[in-house]
């Protein structure tokens, strides 16, 4: 099955972004967004890529071709209904085999971002270490969450200053990042903790970890949702950059501009 590339309408019209025009080199960067049965945030991720100035390509989990995309986003949601374990069945989707192979390919490896359920898929696929279990307080949580960028050397964080903070939505039930101490020490030592929760740990994640990367820095996973904080009027009510209008937070946009600018080089 092939999904069509239906243009996702931008409610209220596109924002006047400097990069959002056809002459921009960013427009030539193709970012694929994978849809599994049960994905929820694929459309939002597609919008985020377009708002950042790139071209988004819908990818279907059951396909065997990556359609020559330059990067891939595995979005949030409940792929396969979270049956067995979150991400456990999605990991064996035909397209995931292609993604795993392409993401493991050394210097030219495919940049991959996993958000929430997508992060869980990446850990199940062994592209990232550790795993997520139920939040320590057992509740589904949905709130605007403050994070700190701990490594701006990855494909997905280069537009942020090192140590910069951002506020983006967090919404999940299985958000508690766990790994054994040796793995955690390794992640810390190699600078692979990419995002850390600030102002309180929302789910019991080890060492306040909100996002990590692989050793090469092309694969990043995080639990909070940058794609929900990319467009004024539709984002969180707060920003780490100061006061914003109601729903004016766009702190997540830098994740998407990072990969586009990195790929244009």
């Amino acid at each position, binding site marked *: 099955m092939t999904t069509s590339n239906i243009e996702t309408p931008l409610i209220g019209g596109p924002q006047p972004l400097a990069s959002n025009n056809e002459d921009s080199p960013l427009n030539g960067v193709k970012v694929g967004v994978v849809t599994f049965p049960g994905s929820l945030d694929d459309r939002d991720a597609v919008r985020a890529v377009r708002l950042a100035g790139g071209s988004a390509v819908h990818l279907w989990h059951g396909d065997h071709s990556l359609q020559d995309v330059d990067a891939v986003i595995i979005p949030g949601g409940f792929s396969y209904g979270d049956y*067995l*374990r979150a991400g*456990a069945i999605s990991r*064996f989707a035909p397209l995931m085999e292609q993604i795993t192979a392409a993401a493991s390919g050394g210097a030219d490896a495919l940049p991959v971002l996993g958000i929430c359920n997508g992060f869980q898929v990446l*850990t*199940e696929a062994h592209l990232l*270490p*550790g*795993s997520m*279990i*139920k*939040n*320590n307080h*057992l509740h589904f949580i949905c709130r605007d969450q403050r994070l700190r960028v701990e490594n701006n050397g990855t494909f997905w964080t280069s537009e942020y200053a090192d140590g910069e903070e951002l506020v983006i939505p967090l919404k999940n039930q299985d958000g*508690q990042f*766990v*790994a*054994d101490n040796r793995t955690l020490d390794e992640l810390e030592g190699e600078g692979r903790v990419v995002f850390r929760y600030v102002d309180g740990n929302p789910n*019991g994640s080890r060492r306040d970890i909100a996002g990590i990367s692989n050793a090469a820095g092309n694969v990043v996973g995080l639990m909070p949702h940058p794609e929900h904080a990319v467009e004024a009027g539709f984002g969180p009510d707060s920003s780490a950059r100061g006061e914003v209008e109601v729903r004016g937070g766009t702190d997540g946009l830098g994740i998407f501009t990072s990969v586009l600018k990195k790929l244009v080089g």
Partner: protein
Amino acid sequence: MPRIVVDVMPKPEILDPQGKAIAGALPRIGLTGFASVRQGKRFELTVDGVVTDEVLEQARHAATTLLSNPVIEDVTRVEVLEEDAQ
């Protein structure tokens, strides 16, 4: 048809939030004799025919690659159900 049972439990060092919630609910129905609860999963793999060594090996492979995540879970049992073996 014979069945192979696979039991999967959260690793001892991993906090089991679901087990904790169940432990908290037990006293509410008057059952106070339990110190803690851990919740695992049981899978039953039905075999069409005889359980050969090869099939059992496939079940072990399934247990460690798909049915459990070794980061957070242990496979505590892979065996043919006794009542089916008769």
